[in-house]
């Protein structure tokens, strides 16, 4: 057998095992053979997800110094720290596919990899922190609960950990909204204004409609996604409408109505032009988010360099048999 024949044989066996794993609903693990496109899709999706967690710290971090009470400040810091942690879990998962974190970071900084468009909208009032927890994290949870069953093992494990923590995020956000609607007329108006601005971008978070989504079909076949964008969006709407009703707030959609026949809420058309505009870089905060990220990275260079030098010196001293300081 020639070398090429042997390689072809190995690939055929690998492909058969990969297909069998998917058929049996088992997880694909880092050292398993996988199609190149599966690997690429997985890297792209996990990296985008990781970037979103990291960039997602900014709109909320914006309010840490202005949180209304010490309790809310502590909660918000814990939440923002969680987002950083979620980014790290996900970068680790991406790295098992053979990319380096530096490479992914460079792709984010240069705009060649994207993050969720939702983080390109500004947080204008304290109520936005409530709306983000309630709606943005609510939408993220809907998506991520599905992803706990994704076919790539390291990604699924990261999702399980993240979902456990996201529940706190959504509940603290809803509680902020509750306190506001119980407050003054001005506070109620602030809550309504936040819902008005965050509702549509939250629905858009699930991605383009199934009919226009180029990735969905293959992703479902590979069991990366277990449900389509439209199915997840519908679930989110059905869950969220009663929560808005309880708050006494109005969802900014004149077409929103319960459809007895479908057993679901009907809702209006999402502004997809806005969605694409923001994804392509022209949202209210795109440039600011990336500029902040790059600046944080560059400003931290001396810390990384010092840590490296310290580790290097310790290693040298250990080798020389002298005591390290």
């Amino acid at each position, binding site marked *: 057998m020639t070398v090429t024949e042997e390689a072809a044989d190995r690939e055929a066996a690998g492909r058969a095992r990969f297909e069998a794993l998917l058929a049996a609903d088992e997880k694909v693990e880092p050292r398993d053979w996988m199609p190149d496109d599966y690997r690429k899709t997985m890297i792209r999706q996990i990296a985008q997800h990781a970037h979103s967690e990291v960039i997602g710290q900014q709109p909320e971090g914006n309010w840490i110094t202005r949180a209304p009470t010490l309790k809310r400040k502590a909660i918000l810091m814990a939440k923002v720290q969680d987002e950083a942690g979620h980014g790290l879990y996900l970068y680790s998962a991406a*790295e098992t596919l053979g990319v380096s974190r530096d490479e992914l970071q460079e792709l984010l900084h240069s705009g060649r990899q994207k993050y969720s468009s939702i983080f390109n909208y500004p947080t204008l009032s304290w109520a936005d922190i409530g709306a983000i927890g309630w709606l943005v994290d609510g939408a993220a949870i809907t998506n991520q609960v599905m992803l706990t069953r994704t076919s790539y093992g390291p990604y699924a494990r990261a999702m399980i950990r993240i979902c456990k923590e996201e529940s706190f995020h959504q509940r603290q956000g809803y509680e902020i909204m509750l306190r506001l609607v119980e407050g003054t007329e001005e506070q109620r108006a602030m809550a309504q204004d936040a819902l008005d601005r965050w509702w549509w971008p939250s629905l858009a978070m699930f991605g383009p409609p199934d009919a226009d989504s180029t990735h969905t079909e293959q992703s479902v076949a590979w069991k990366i996604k277990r449900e389509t964008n439209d199915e997840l969006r519908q679930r989110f709407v059905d869950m969220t409408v009663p929560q808005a009703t309880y708050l006494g707030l109005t969802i900014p959609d004149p077409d929103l109505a319960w459809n007895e026949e479908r057993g679901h809420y009907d809702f209006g058309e999402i502004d997809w032009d806005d969605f694409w505009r923001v994804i392509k870089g022209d949202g209210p905060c795109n440039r600011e988010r990336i500029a902040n990220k790059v600046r944080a990275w560059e400003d931290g260079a001396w810390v990384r360099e010092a840590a490296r030098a310290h580790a*290097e010196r310790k290693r040298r001293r250990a080798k020389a048999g002298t005591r390290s300081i």
Partner: protein
Amino acid sequence: MSYDVPPIEGEVERGPEGTTGGYRLWEVFVRASRGLNHVHAGSLHAPDAETAARNARDVYTRRGEGVSIWVVPSSAIHASDPDAAEAWFDSDKPYRHPTFYEIPDEVGHM
């Protein structure tokens, strides 16, 4: 454990001048409470073991998930060959399990 990271740029001791690389990859094991095993929790990058352990605390134990942490350089882990999994981990020896043996009910719990 079947967790193995292919060689990546970040694993080198020092990255090329002016780049960000140079941190090693560490595997993190967390003991949830005394009396339990340390269990693999994930991985992270750090320049040395002390920093790895400290970062592991922040990344993997923000909610009282553990009382002890181990960090191990990922490069120190040798994993079994996934292609050999069938041969290595056969499950056709039912006589190794207690349920293989039929004990009359009258004998009682055994």
